[in-house]
């Protein structure tokens, strides 16, 4: 598993924001992920896709910070989609009881298609 220095990048895809967390997702990096999402939510974006393809090691605090994003989106009736999750990541989210609070898709395009359809 990759454990490179954490960084977070993002892009806008239509009316959705796609976030790319990269590296070790712990408490500090989890906060920068939350901040990145917060910027989009602040701009009125209600659809967020988190692409985990580059995420390395994780810990429970890092994952749990996603709860904050879930809660922020819930308050504005938004949606969070998680994509490109390894089996390990999915298992872990499941163990923590997070999986039922998000939409999970194999790839980023699947999530964007779903969110597009939701608008229509």
């Amino acid at each position, binding site marked *: *598993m990759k*454990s490179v220095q954490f960084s977070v990048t993002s892009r806008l895809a239509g009316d959705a924001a796609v976030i790319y967390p990269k590296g*070790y997702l*712990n*408490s*500090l990096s*989890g906060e920068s992920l939350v901040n990145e999402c917060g910027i989009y939510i602040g701009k009125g974006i209600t659809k967020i896709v988190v692409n985990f393809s580059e995420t390395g*090691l*994780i*810990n*429970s*605090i890092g*994952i*749990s*910070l996603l*709860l*904050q994003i*879930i*809660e922020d989106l*819930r308050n504005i009736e938004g949606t969070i989609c998680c994509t490109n999750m*390894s*089996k*390990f990541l999915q*298992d*872990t989210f499941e*163990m*923590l*009881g*997070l999986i039922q*609070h998000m939409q999970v898709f194999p790839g980023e395009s699947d999530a964007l298609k779903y969110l597009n359809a939701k608008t229509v």
Partner: protein
Amino acid sequence: MPFHPLPAEDFLNRENELDYLKGLPLLKESALGGNVFLEGARGIGKTELLKQLYRSLFWESGTVPFYYSFKTANLKGTYFAKDYFTGFVRQFFSCVMKEPSIVENAAEPLQRLMPVIASVGLHWLVDCIEDFREHLNSNDIYWQIVAAISLPATVAQKSGKPVMVMLDDFDTAERLYESSLGDAHGLISLFGESMKNSLCPHVMTGSAGALESIFTDPSLVGMTERMQLGPLPEDLAVRLFKAHLANLKIACAPAGQLKFLAILNGNPLYIRNLAKAAWKMQKKELHEKDLIECYCFEVSEGETAFYWSSIFGRYVQSPAKRRGLLKLLMLSVENEGVDDGDRLVSGLYGTEERAALDALRASGVNRGWDPVLRDFIRCLYMKEVEGRRADDVREKIESNYLSEREDSRFELVIPMSSNAELVVAKAVEQIGRNMNFNADFLNHLQLALIEVCINAIEHSGSYEKKVFLKFITKPDKLEIIVENSGRPFSHDSRREIPVEESLRRGMTRGRGFKLVHAIMDDVKIERIGNRTRVILTKNIDERIVEPGTRTL
């Protein structure tokens, strides 16, 4: 009940001795015997036997029991006389009134008891107290001691009831003195008159072989029989151990897995201490390996270590001399006997160390060298002479007993600094690869370890600022031990919090151990002194290894 004996059902295998001692007043009255010198290894249960005898006589017979421990006594003549005298008055009156609180309430001055004593018609006892007070006022040390020691015999004559005098660690009385240590050899012989009294059977405890050396009057030796208190047989030792565990709510492996208990040599003190160690280490279930762990804690840092350490402290006080003595003892231990040790170190040590060793020998401490005492000495030697850390010492002793084959063992120490857990993750990744773990399980294993390390780093508040990890790989399982000093786990950190509640309360923490439990097969959390130890175990099966790599 004074002196808090064990519950009768947990006092095993001493019925014959107890019955015999209860019959002593009759034997003494008919001049068939009457004084007993109770011998046996330390911790074998001599004091407990006296306590049981006391309880039995106090409630069930016409004999007045009197117990005095020289173990804790102040041996300066004036203090001793006052302590012995007032102790006897309280215990006698307590027995007459069948009121244990009279003994327990030692802070109440004797003077305040006198009107009550007089009110029940014991005017002769009031006279004895007055006489003793006169000896005190005239500062007559000799008569204070004589009056105190002869009081049981006097009371037996006046009351017509036999008095059973129980003198615990009696050989210590040889060191009674007037104003400075060693200034009045032979004060112990003042007990002779009391011991000859036909209404006063005496039961004394002491180290084996001490009897001849404490009495100069051969007639006293002649009228005192020896009773040897042996170890508990193996089955009863197991029964006693299980009884202690049951009281502490610890589940126990079947008897077959308690073979290691044999090392305690049926010694009730060791058995009790080992059960308590299991409780202190927060064991919920005890198997052979846990027993070994608890034992190693006991002989290095537990109550057994404290017990032996305090006995050693009596014979040698200065740290330098203590180290010298330890070197001598260690040689004896490693050479299976003091004589070999003597030969090897001849001429190398000072007279004081040798004198301390002789005193230890005379006290019977190192007679027979039981395995527990040997291990205690090894531990003390490693700590005080070699300067090793307590956990290192424990481990060394443990490795002597762990017969299980360990394929390999890796150790790692990380600082409590940010991202240090990543080093652990990297290490376990390689260890896991060596064990052919599949990538999915490897990730889970890394996560579990990261969680435990973060918990140690963030919550322990340790000044040591280090986390110690040990990976033990065996053909059928992986065991990871994570240890750190500092605060123990709080119950909150182990409580499962539902996601909904976390969302509501904005909580992002408190889920780590849920993950750890889900990933590992067994998670044990123990407390050893001020250290917390988490033991993670994963059984190896085909679900977690690469296909085709596991051979059974």
